[in-house]
């Protein structure tokens, strides 16, 4: 009897999982096909035109030398509500940045920047999940699962290109909202935490083409494939702690990250020193206690993991090491 019930539960969970997986690509696909009313991929093709219009209006009024866009991890429900440690990280990072503007209102797991609790068919369900999550229940795992599926959509060679246009389009709209001077060539740095790493790298190419400025990526324990879009990156910094088992999914799951795939985008860029692996310490993990954003655990010198991460990320934004290398190389080349 008990086995029968367990069997039934297992079957139901499996069916629900397969159903969720089967339906996961359709948000980005129907967006691209223009089936979503006002929010259509077709309209976003016109982003470049909008950008040109904005050129003259904003080119001279921004005091910032760089724009930084934060793409949250798979636990994200919306672009406004982050985990407390993520919120603290962003607030502290803002204070540490020199002449850089931080954009932190993006929800990268939806090509329409639509929060799970927003105008969706299942918004009621996600609101319930959000409530349970706040109460400390395990319902938050459902959000993780839903967003992991979106990461897989982004990494899929069939859906990925369309999804990447969607992500690029919400980033461009966010930059627009925050006064990014299009056409100025001001670099944009994407910070991708966890699954946000994949979202960052998949959007680089359409983003670079649209804003005509260099795009850098800082992956904070990012789970990343060897997306073709990476070809357009100026530099990728991949921050990873030795205890971070989540970021290790990338090199295992995606064949382009395997060492034998010598000519994959990832391995070619790595050889060209356009990808830098930044070790975060032997004891640093992905999230929670012992994770990158843990403000309780400390290194032997007394610095918390949180402060260390903020210092590392802010130094990579304020003083990117790859630019020094580029400066060193240029005189030799000439």
């Amino acid at each position, binding site marked *: 009897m008990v086995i029968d019930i367990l069997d039934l539960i297992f079957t139901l969970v499996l069916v629900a999982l397969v159903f969720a997986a089967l339906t996961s*690509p359709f948000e980005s696909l129907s967006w691209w096909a223009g089936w979503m009313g006002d929010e259509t991929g077709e309209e976003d093709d016109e982003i*470049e035109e909008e950008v040109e219009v904005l050129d003259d209006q904003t080119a001279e009024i921004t005091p910032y030398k760089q724009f930084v866009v934060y793409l949250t991890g798979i636990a994200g429900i919306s672009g406004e509500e982050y985990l407390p440690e993520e919120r603290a990280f962003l607030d502290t990072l803002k204070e540490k940045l020199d002449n850089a503007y931080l954009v932190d209102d993006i929800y990268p797991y939806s090509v329409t920047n639509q929060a799970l609790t927003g105008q969706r068919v299942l918004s009621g369900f996600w609101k319930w999940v959000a409530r349970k999550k706040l109460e400390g229940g395990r319902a938050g795992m459902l959000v993780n699962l839903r967003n992991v*599926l979106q990461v897989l*959509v982004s*990494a899929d060679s069939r859906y990925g290109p*369309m999804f990447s246009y969607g992500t690029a389009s919400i980033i461009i709209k966010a930059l627009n909202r925050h006064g990014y001077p299009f056409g100025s060539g001001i670099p944009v740095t994407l910070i991708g935490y966890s699954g946000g790493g994949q979202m960052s790298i998949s959007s680089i190419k359409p983003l670079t083409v649209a804003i005509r400025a260099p795009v850098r990526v800082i992956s904070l324990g990012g789970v990343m494939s060897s997306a073709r879009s990476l070809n357009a990156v100026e530099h990728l910094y991949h921050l990873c702690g030795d205890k971070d088992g989540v970021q290790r999914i990338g090199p295992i799951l995606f064949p382009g990250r395997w060492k034998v795939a010598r000519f994959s985008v990832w391995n070619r860029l790595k050889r060209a020193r356009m990808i830098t692996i930044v070790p975060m310490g032997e004891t640093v993990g992905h999230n929670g206690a012992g994770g990158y954003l843990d403000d309780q655990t400390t290194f032997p010198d007394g610095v918390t993991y949180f402060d260390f991460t903020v210092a590392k990320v802010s130094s990579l934004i304020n003083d990117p090491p790859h630019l020094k290398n580029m400066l060193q190389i240029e005189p030799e080349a000439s």
Partner: protein
Amino acid sequence: MTSEFLRLMRILVLICTLFLLTMVVIAQTDVPATPTLTPEAAIEEFREVFDPVAQDDSVKYVLSIAFLPILILAGLSDAAAQSVVLFANRVKPARFALLIFVNVLTFIFGYFVWVFSIWVYMKVFVEVELALPYIIIAVGLAYLPLMFSFLSIIPYFGNYIYSGLLIFSFLVIAQNMQLFFELPTTQAYMSALFGLVFTQVLRLTVGRPIIFIFQKFRDLVAGTRFESSVERALSRAQKTSQEN
């Protein structure tokens, strides 16, 4: 009337037996072999029912039709799996449904090409003329795994699932050729492989005008120039937006 009814019932029983047989063939490693349910025994039973009935031309015809539901379901599943190209081409919902229908027809056409190719192989290279209904069944059963093609919609892993199903389907054809016609293993695999090569040769030679007409028809249904790969559809969308 009664004899017609009985004939129909026998055909239905036959189809059910075939389904059972396929399940056994597909999962023969998992199903414990019983004296009555080994693939060979099942084939024997099937022949006992089928051979006398197969003498009748109308039954052959009905049997070919009887496989259509399997083909249509497999075709629908396959069309759903391939629908990403329709989205990439920004096809509107009504045209989308029509194109799914066109894809199902193409899929069924591909099935008959494969059946024909195996018949040609046996006739030309082995100099044996196989009964076409048998080939229709042998290949038709191999299309059963493709009813799960829709699972390839699953992001990332779907690509591997689809490849697995195609390989599975190919192996079942070879297996069925062995079981139905008692061909040696090499011969059975060669006949199935020939089906693949033959289809490609047809595509590149005499099939070209047909493919051209089909593409024109598909463009007409899509209401735009239809690109058959996601990549080409995306780059065309970009070009169009730049031109505008």
